[in-house]
């Protein structure tokens, strides 16, 4: 999709300087950068105007404006210092390891966000909206945790088995939602929301009983700790918490790229996402694609579950999702549902997560970062808003999601026509079908 877009942008380039400037301004990358900057500006305003020293200086603003600006800039400074120290590099660290630990922590937090983000992004490309990453993470975690202590296998084998269990658990839960949509036409948003709660209660039940917590002494739901053989080994030695789960995540980014851009099944996924009716006409079994795409989506979310469960030797609780299921949606949206975009968006949000403790100790509430995240997505999701704010030229939405696939609105057809994909897709789809 991005290819066709770029081609079209190229043809639009005119010779006058003003037009070229406009063309650069209308590119989606710049728009995303603007969205991120704007969100941080709004976030900083919140930080400034809730800062105690700033509030004290406000009544006397006209008498002593210097104090206000000093207080404001010191709170901005504290914010960025904490962000840098907490997410990238801590110059105050006693050892080199301690200095670089923040960067590895950012990567560790980014891992599950990227993986789950890929899972959600995959469904966006098929024209579906998977809100069920939370339930899928819970199921994947439960499966991985089960394999991690119920089996006792040799080094290496055990870890592989536990990882596969995690992937299968998440994938099954996801595929059920896809199956329900395919069979009954129920909207996947409501189905996945319900399945989140069902998963939460089922997993909590398993964690209260012998299934996941044999020999439990209290009624607090938690799983048995995994065998040492089933824990993902540390990536950079004992000085850092980052583990091989991050390598799994990077691999899944590559797999996602190949799957969606190069493979035949990915082509079918995208075809259904562009226009399910055309895809059906071209001989693609749309119902089967709904189930398959949800199953694949669950595999990626399963990588996030495995990261969470087998990343250390601690017991997991029903809170293992830790908000990743919903943050994955924002990661997928910001990343434009493509592999590199999701990777970068996940890294950004992972860094924001990692910086929480540093923010806290700098006196800035880490909750400001979820405000910033929400604003980023709001600005990114609304190209016309940014356009109106900066008087940018007309452009299409680059969010790779269509209206619910059952909609046959003329608006969608129009958007597809604009994007220049309808005829191309149909032609390719026909080829694909006839090959079969």
């Amino acid at each position, binding site marked *: 999709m991005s290819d066709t877009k770029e081609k079209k942008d190229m043809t639009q380039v005119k010779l006058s300087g003003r037009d070229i400037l406009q063309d650069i301004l209308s590119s989606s990358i710049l728009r995303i950068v603007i969205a991120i900057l704007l969100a941080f500006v709004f976030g900083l305003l*919140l930080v400034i105007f*809730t800062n105690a020293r700033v509030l004290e200086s406000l009544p006397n603003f006209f008498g002593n404006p210097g104090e206000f600006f000093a207080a404001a800039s010191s709170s901005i400074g504290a914010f960025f210092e904490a962000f840098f120290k907490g997410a990238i590099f801590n110059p105050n660290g006693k050892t080199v390891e301690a200095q670089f630990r923040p960067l590895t922590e950012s990567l560790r937090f980014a891992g599950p966000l990227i993986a789950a983000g890929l899972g959600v992004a995959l469904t966006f490309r098929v024209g579906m*909206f998977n*809100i069920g990453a939370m339930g899928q993470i819970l199921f994947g975690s439960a499966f991985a945790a089960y394999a991690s202590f119920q089996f006792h296998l040799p080094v290496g084998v055990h870890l592989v088995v536990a990882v596969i269990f995690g992937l299968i658990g998440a994938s099954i839960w996801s595929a059920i939602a896809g199956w*329900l949509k395919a*069979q*009954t*036409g*129920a*909207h996947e*948003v*409501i*189905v996945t*929301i*319900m*399945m989140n*709660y*069902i998963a939460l*209660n*089922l997993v*909590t*039940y398993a964690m*209260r*009983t012998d299934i996941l917590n044999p020999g439990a002494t209290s009624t607090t739901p938690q799983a048995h700790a995994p065998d040492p053989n089933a824990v993902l080994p540390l990536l950079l030695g004992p000085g850092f918490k980052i583990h091989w789960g991050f390598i799994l995540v990077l691999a899944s980014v590559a797999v996602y790229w190949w799957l969606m851009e190069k493979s035949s099944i990915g082509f079918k996924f995208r075809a259904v996402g562009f226009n399910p009716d055309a895809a059906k006409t071209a001989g693609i079994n749309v119902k089967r694609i709904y189930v398959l795409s949800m199953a694949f989506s669950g595999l990626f979310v399963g990588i996030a579950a495995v990261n969470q469960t087998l990343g250390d030797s601690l017991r997991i609780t029903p809170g293992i999702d830790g908000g990743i299921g*919903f*943050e994955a*949606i*924002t990661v997928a*949206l910001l990343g434009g549902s493509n592999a590199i975009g999701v990777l970068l968006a996940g890294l950004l949000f992972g860094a924001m997560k990692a910086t929480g403790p540093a923010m806290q100790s700098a006196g800035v*509430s880490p*909750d*400001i*970062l*979820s*405000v*910033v*995240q*929400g*604003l980023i*997505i*709001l600005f990114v*999701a*609304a*190209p*016309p*808003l940014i356009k109106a704010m900066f008087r940018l030229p007309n452009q299409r*939405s680059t*969010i790779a*999601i269509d*209206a*619910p696939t059952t*909609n046959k*609105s003329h*608006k969608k057809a129009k958007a597809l026509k604009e994007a220049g994909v309808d005829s191309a897709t149909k032609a390719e789809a026909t080829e694909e079908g006839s090959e079969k």
Partner: protein
Amino acid sequence: MTLERQFDAAAPIQWKMPIILSVAALVILGFFGFGVDSNDVVFRWSNDTDAIVLANTAINAQLLGIVLGAISVLAAAASIWFAARRKQVPWYLSLIVGFSFIVGLISSVGVGTNVNVVFILSSTVALSTVIVFGSLAGIIGERVGVVNIAIEGQLLMGAFVAAFLGTITGSLWVALIAATLGGALVSMVLAVFSIKYLVDQIIVGVVLNVLVSGITAFFFSTVMSKNGVGTNFPGTFPIISIPFLSDIPVIGPVLFSQRLTTYLMFILVPLVWFVLFKTKLGLRLRSMGEHPLAADTVGLNVNRTRFWAVTLAGLIAGLGGAALTVGSVGSFVKEMSAGQGFIALAVVILGRWHPIYAAAAALLFGFAGTFRIWAVQAGAEIPSDLIQTTPYLVTLLAVTILVGKSVAPASVGKAYEKQ
């Protein structure tokens, strides 16, 4: 499941309802009847301090379960009879089985102990209040064609604003009004983005939830946690007992001895129903969700009407937020809506986009929450976590069975662009 739908003689027989009812009937007979000890269960209808004290009813739980099971089996058989004749299964058959299921469940858990009926009913109402407000907002939104995933955010914003402004001004009325405005503000953002800027409604909703949860959490940890008494201590509306009515046994304490927010819910449910289904305005509103082009053709301004209807819905969701703080616990906590906005979405569908059915569906969720608390107190051996999944399973079942019948507004979720 009572749709006034005429089936042709050649139409396929609809077996879904009879199968569900039969399974439920067998569960009642087996698990709540024969599976229960032959012991007494005591239903307590009133407290000793009430004006009118009803005597407790002691009954053999096994016998009760078997009788309820037998009635349900008959109802299921009747539903098979109706289905085989290609007739719509009457709604009262589902009601009979559902009621038997709940009574059987309670008596099988409460066997050998007391069942405080008043506690169960009032707690059910209390736990469903917020969901009812949320679902009313959802119904209005979807009836005019805008999916409101941001109910969660509206509840949270309402709860936060009510606690904050209520404390600062020291007035519960300010808290109530502020909550409605807070909910409406979130709704307006949803409306502007989805109607004016044509952003996908589900995306805006999800993003608004993230944003509101972030903003309220930020203010909670920077302002409220430092000065709780000065910023997060609004108090609660007093419990108003309506004279005479509140003395009626069972019904009195449940319906007529509540806080203002609950009474508002009692008023709003029929009011929204009346406006939507019995007035000219309601007809116009629903036309926006069913066929916006037709509404536009006859001269209605689709997008402006949608905008104000969604904003109005936000007012109601904001009231739900007020019910969380000034109508219940009396202070704001991070993430205190705890997914009730999403449950409200399910209730909208389970209640078939109808305020009164939705309120009934909300009671089901309220009951599930109550039952979990009560079952633990009663020392039940059945796992409360599994019971807790029931309303979600019922919703899932309803969503998958109801689909295909023209219940949802036809144009829900689609932006309308004037040609």
